[in-house]
């Protein structure tokens, strides 16, 4: 297809979440929202202002927020519980495990400021492990959309999916390039750019970078395929296996540590199916640090340039 994706203007993915949640509030009275003293950062304020009786302020007590959300869910509500990604994953892993995943409660865990692009607050707030944490939990669906439009669509889609969901999004303004009216299909990988020489499986903020990389590679006569893995779990195995089999070389790109991330997930799958040379665009065993989001993406080599060189390395290893 080699569709041309154009940036319709930078927007933060968390605002996509906020807009989706606000819309849900209007159409579904069972939707409730919970936040742990970060309402503005999560862009939940529109919902909170319009539906105060369905907005539940939890204060700085994330463990209790998760349990409360589980209690709301078991009794019939559809709770969206939000905080910074680290504080709704690592801070509350055991609570999510028992009261959400194992109890199969219909809780939507909403994680903003995921990854290194959280920026200046630094390492204690920058989780690059949340995908690894959440995808280990049976029963949980794990989603990491790529831009404002897709985050909004995903937010709306997960309300209709009965079961626990982890939804990951980010802080900074980034290109918004997917169609505004695109339906979000959980578990269905999206072919963004068709190609023959190498498969780039990207998620979240790295999808745009992967598309840029494919453009650069095209200029050098290399045909790269870009697949948007917006749903980490359940992984669209068929899409991954087929693309990798076609190109014979794989790059994975994510705003995450190598450990536990999409790259290892795909490596695990492919070694079982058809071992394929793979290069990782991800952070190798480091904590983050303070800095501006764009500078950090460069510093930690999470950008189009890194994907380009990873693609060349992968192809060379065929």
């Amino acid at each position, binding site marked *: 297809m080699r569709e041309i994706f154009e940036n319709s203007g930078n927007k933060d993915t968390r605002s996509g979440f906020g807009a989706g949640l606000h819309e849900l509030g209007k159409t579904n009275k069972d939707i409730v929202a919970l936040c742990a003293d970060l309402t503005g950062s999560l862009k939940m304020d529109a919902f909170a202002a319009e539906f105060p009786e369905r907005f*539940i302020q939890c204060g700085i007590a994330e463990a*209790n927020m998760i349990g*409360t959300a589980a209690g709301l869910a078991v009794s019939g*509500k559809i709770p969206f519980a939000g905080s910074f990604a680290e504080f709704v994953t690592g801070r509350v892993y055991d609570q999510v495990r028992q009261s959400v995943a194992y109890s199969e409660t219909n809780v939507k865990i909403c994680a903003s400021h995921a990854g290194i692009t959280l920026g200046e607050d630094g390492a204690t707030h920058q989780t690059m492990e949340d995908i690894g944490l959440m995808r280990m939990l049976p029963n949980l669906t794990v989603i990491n959309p790529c831009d404002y439009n897709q985050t909004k669509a995903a937010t709306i889609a997960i309300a209709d999916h009965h079961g626990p969901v982890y939804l990951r999004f980010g802080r900074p303004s980034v290109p918004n390039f997917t169609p505004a009216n695109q339906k979000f299909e959980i578990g269905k990988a999206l072919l963004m750019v068709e190609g023959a020489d190498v498969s780039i499986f990207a998620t979240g903020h790295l999808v745009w970078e992967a598309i840029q990389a494919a453009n650069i590679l095209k200029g050098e006569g290399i045909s790269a395929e870009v697949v948007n893995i917006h749903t980490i779990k359940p992984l669209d195995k068929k899409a991954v296996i087929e693309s990798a089999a076609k190109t014979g070389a794989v790059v994975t790109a994510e705003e995450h540590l190598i450990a536990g991330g999409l790259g290892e997930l795909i490596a695990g799958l492919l070694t079982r199916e058809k071992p394929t040379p793979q290069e990782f665009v991800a952070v190798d065993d480091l904590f983050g640090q303070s800095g501006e989001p764009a500078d950090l993406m460069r510093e930690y080599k999470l950008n189009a340039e890194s994907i380009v060189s990873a693609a060349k390395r992968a192809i060379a290893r065929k």
Partner: protein
Amino acid sequence: MVLSLSIREQKKSKNRKIITIMTHNYPLGEIASQVRRDIVRMVNLAASGHPGGSLSSTEIMTALFFSEMNHNPANWRRDGKGKDMFFLSAGHLSPVFYSILARSGYFPVSELASFRKLGSRLQGHPSVERGLPGVHMASGSLGQGLSVACGAALTKRIEGENNFIYVLMGDGESQEGQVWEAAMFAAHHKLSNIIAFTDWNGQQIDGPNEKVMSLGDLEAKWRAFGWDVVVADGHDIEAIKAVIRGAKEASADGKPKMLLMKTEMGKEVDFMQGTHHWHGKAPNAEQTEKALSQLKETIGDF
């Protein structure tokens, strides 16, 4: 691979209704005695499990399920719509919970024999995976149940239902910080439809609370966190009924209710009573015999 092993038989609700009515004809004290026999026998059969706290909370659970709670075992819904809901926060008290549920008619009493066995619906700690009626939520990792109760209490309020949310916690369990997060939350949101019990048996795994991690003035703690607090004898069924009723009646005051129930771990089995040694230990055949000789069989063993 595993779910296929589940015991999925759903007894007809008609049958369950009959069981319930029959059980309800017994005095509460006799039900409690049978429940205690069930606890000892289940834990012995499984060769693992937690008799100590189960025996200390037997009267609390009996008074609640056989007298005070608005529930319908014959027509149970996981979402608790239109009914009171009960959450077992201290999931290791599963023996007393399962016995009470079975004796209430939620599932056949014969199923108690499957406790902790591979594929059973009666998991070591309560679980919802295999659809055991009466269990709204999994528990076992301590400190989470009061938070869950807060969520359910909010739903009741949003829906305009005036049912109550009950939750049973261990005393040692209140060392978990999440309990105090929930305490603060419930007071802030004025969740006066929460009625919580602490099984104040003074013991936990490593010894008496006082030695392991003193709860200090537990009553003062809950009051300082904005709760109505009552201390009562957790083995006196009439006293338990009275404090639950009192809590229901005071629900207009906007405060959540903590009923601190003074109990003894291992109650009614002389060699288990008052010590932490039987917190999580199964009696062998001989010990079981000795225990059962002290507990009257009333309704009939499973």
